[in-house]
């Protein structure tokens, strides 16, 4: 229990996936312009990341390791993630059209979101148990969402700000992300696994 709680705290705040570990920077810069899209992307990522980690962990433990096939890890994981995204897309379209309309555009983008792949790989590399791996995935995706939503809030105001035109767009977004990351640096060293 203690370990689960510290996993949750560490991967939301201390080692935030976007602001400290640099995973998932592309969607972080790409969809943080509006609050609405940021929330949609966050939901899709939480969903896919948890599912992907569950499936890849099971595959790794019960198929790859017993058969000495760990060198196929990268190929297997990326295929699982890509097909899972497709599956989720088809499933959502049938079951919940409203949710599908909300998440629809973001789902294909998740395949190349390196945060998903990173969670799957790290869960295996750090030798988490199944429960720990799933909690880790949820915490990491919540950390991702937190960073994305804070950033969207800042960027909506940033649109109105007056600044030199060379800074406009991605340059100022990165500098803002740096300042945000500095705030999260305050959690540094509070907890380790």
């Amino acid at each position, binding site marked *: 229990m203690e370990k689960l709680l510290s996993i949750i705290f560490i991967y939301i705040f201390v080692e935030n996936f976007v602001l400290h570990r640099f995973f998932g920077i592309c969607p972080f810069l790409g969809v943080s312009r509006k609050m609405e899209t940021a929330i949609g992307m966050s939901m899709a990522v939480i969903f896919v990341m948890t599912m992907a980690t569950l499936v890849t962990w099971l595959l790794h433990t019960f198929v790859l390791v017993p058969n000495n096939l760990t060198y196929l890890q990268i190929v297997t994981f990326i295929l699982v993630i*890509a097909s899972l995204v497709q599956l989720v897309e088809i499933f959502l379209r049938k079951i919940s059209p409203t949710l599908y309309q909300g998440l629809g555009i973001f789902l294909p983008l998740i395949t190349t979101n390196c945060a998903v792949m990173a969670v799957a790989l790290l869960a295996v590399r750090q030798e988490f148990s199944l429960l720990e791996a799933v909690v880790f995935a949820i915490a990491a995706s919540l950390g991702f969402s937190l960073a994305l939503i804070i950033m969207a809030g800042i960027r909506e105001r940033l649109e109105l700000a007056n600044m030199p035109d060379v*800074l406009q767009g991605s340059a100022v977004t990165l500098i803002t992300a740096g300042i945000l*990351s500095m705030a999260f640096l305050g959690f540094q060293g509070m907890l380790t696994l």
Partner: protein
Amino acid sequence: MKQNNVYIQDLTRGIVKENPVFVALLGMCPVLGVTAFVVNGFGMGLAATAVLIAANLVVSLLRNYIPPQVRIPCFIVIIATFVTIIEMVLQAFQPVLYEALGVFVPLIVVNCVILGRSEAFASKKPVVRSFLDGIGVGLGFTLALVILAFFREILGHGTILGPDPESAIHLFGSNFEAMTLFAQPPGAFIALGLLLAIVNMLMKRFNI
């Protein structure tokens, strides 16, 4: 003569004019994640370049055989194969670099620069042009990593060619107090943001 021009364009386009990092803003995760030291940035750049060239070649060779409906999964499998090879090569011959890059080595597979080039260029163009494009874009990516790492290492550690104490050159003597911020995550964001602003300014000045 005209034919040669096309080849030269393919080779040079990715380096400055359509630089994957500074202009297209792709593949940012390793750019921020491994650039605390020039050596790591350079190694990461070369590994990604090798995968990019190989993937471009194979995708271009198979471009008439891959059905368009399932092209993305096919590209991903081709890329993942080469990433696995590179990971094994690094693990065997460059264990220090492999440790330093950590999980970013297998993450080359989700680097959007590589999938982007397969989709936008190699799946439509002949083999030689795809090969040259792979070299150009790979060099552009490596260049961006090395430039960012150069500034971050000097500001954050005061060295060049670290972290190995044997090869590290200390630039400022013993009284130097490093700006640790630039070695840490916030510094990566801020340094890249400032670098992008400078690149924007230069591009505007020289009309590139």
